[in-house]
């Protein structure tokens, strides 16, 4: 008798749980669709001929599918130049930050030394300095160093946000590797560099990849320095290039949205490939700008 009663209660509870789960799925799907709508709409407009951009009622699926925007953007050598600049800049900044940042992270993670806490606080603090405050003097210094309108000026200034990020991220990953690894390797005759390169880095590969992806993303998306420290059309990056389209190309929405899609694809693909690793890192990096 009491057995059936408990059975009944647990069946009820199961059913309630099931309904609750269905509700969560429905809510998540609706919210996600609403929040992803701007992105979906961007793709939709990029595939419409310009006359259809504001046609009423709005259609998600274009009446006439048109790849004109994409073709015009990809055929334009200026846009290809923007993409090339952003790739080169992103790769150089990522590589530099990763190498210098990993060395520093290794020092922080594996040694206790005089001034270690101060040095770490200093690295964290550098992330907090307002970009706009740095920009004004950077402009003066970069012009003075004759690095204005060159990729070197951008590489140098990008390190102010990419390097602290790389240090903090890599420090976090190296901290998760037990010290026994180092000791075993030291007994086998490895020096500190041997420990880092032969033992720790292979284990920390997911961390390195996610740090690299996110550093690349920060560099790819940066706008303020790229806008103010370059001048010629040959030196512009993707974000600045897109922003210039508004004035120079008389608001052709299909082209602008096509270039936005093309310009977002590299980071989107990278992010999707490694999102498992990256998500945890996002919270450490924030977004400056």
């Amino acid at each position, binding site marked *: 008798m009491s057995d059936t009663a408990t059975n009944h209660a647990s069946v009820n509870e199961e059913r309630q749980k099931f309904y609750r789960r269905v509700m969560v799925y429905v809510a998540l799907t609706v919210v996600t669709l609403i929040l992803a709508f701007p992105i979906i709409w961007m793709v939709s407009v990029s595939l419409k001929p310009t006359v259809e951009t504001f046609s009423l009622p709005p259609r998600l699926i274009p009446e006439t599918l048109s790849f004109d925007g994409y073709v015009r953007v990809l055929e334009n050598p200026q846009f290809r130049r923007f993409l090339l600049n952003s790739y080169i800049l992103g790769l150089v900044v990522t590589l530099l930050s990763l190498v210098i940042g990993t060395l520093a992270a290794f020092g922080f993670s594996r040694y206790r*030394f005089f001034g270690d806490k101060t040095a770490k606080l200093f690295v964290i603090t550098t992330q*907090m300095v307002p970009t706009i405050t740095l920009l*004004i*003097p950077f402009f003066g210094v970069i012009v003075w160093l004759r690095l204005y309108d060159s990729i070197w000026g951008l590489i140098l200034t990008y390190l102010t946000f990419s390097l602290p990020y790389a240090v903090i991220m890599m420090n976090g990953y190296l901290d998760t590797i037990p010290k026994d690894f180092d000791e075993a390797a030291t007994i086998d005759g490895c020096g500190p560099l041997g420990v880092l390169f032969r033992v720790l880095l292979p284990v920390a590969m997911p961390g390195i990849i996610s740090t690299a992806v996110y550093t690349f993303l920060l560099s790819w998306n940066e706008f303020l320095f790229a806008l103010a420290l370059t001048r010629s059309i040959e030196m512009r990056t993707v974000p600045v290039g897109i922003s210039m389209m508004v004035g120079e190309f008389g608001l052709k929405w299909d082209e602008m949205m096509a270039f936005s899609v093309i310009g977002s694809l590299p980071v989107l693909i990278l992010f999707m490939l490694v999102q498992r690793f990256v998500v945890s890192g996002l919270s450490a990096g924030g977004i400056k700008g």
Partner: protein
Amino acid sequence: MSRVINGLKENGTPYFFLLPCIVILGALLSVPLYKVVEYSLYDNVIVERNPTFVGLQNYSNLLTDSAFWSASVNTLIFTLGSVIGHIIVGTGLALLVNAEIHPRAQTVFRSLLILPWIFTAVVVALNWQLLLNPFGVINYGLTEIGLIDTPIDWLGDPAFAMWALLLISTWRGYPFIMVSFLSGLQSIPKELYEAAEIDGAGFFAKFWHVTVPQLKPVIYGVALLDLIWTFQLFPLVWLTTGGGPGRSTEVLSTMTFRQGFVDFEFSQAATTAVSILIISAAFTILYLRNEKQKI
């Protein structure tokens, strides 16, 4: 002798690893921070070879400039509004994604919900200009359901521009809070919820008495970080409204940029930049005091 050298080698090792990083960061920060203060004490810097020393003149100009005060008020509204928006949307989504659903589905929803963060500010700005356009989808939807009679130029009307900007900023920034809270939520021991359930706590009681206190350290740090970053944010404002219409959405960062790169008044720009630095330094100290305990 060799022991001394060995000792040096032993103790010197970490400094060797840190040296490149600290030297580069030190140079990249100390030089501009020194320079920006110096610029703010001179007149006609950068554009002229021999600028004149004017002491605190630029500061008194700034403090008596009504544009500075209206930009400060806008910055306050923009920063607080954005951070509150991020926290509300971010917390709600973190709770929803953290609900007991299939881990696969959880991963998919989480990565889809992070998307607004992945795009560069220019793309975000263009997307929303398209949506908020007088002939755009949002106006169409609102007129169809009868909320408004005639389309509104959300970004071009001084009465609505700040609200539109806050909407865009909320959309762009909530993923940071969501991701941070999500990892915080997943570290709360399940036993606490079970114990609360035994005591008869419902959903809201559990949220208020278990989730919030457990998340408190995370909330404080993350909110401060968000505040510091939003306070100095430039691209999103510049690219959506450009500080306009008029000066209705002009914040301190766009004002600095305008003074420097539109009006070529770099001394005045440096002065505004220093004021931004001072305010964000105050928040940074709060953040570091919190962070220090974790190191």
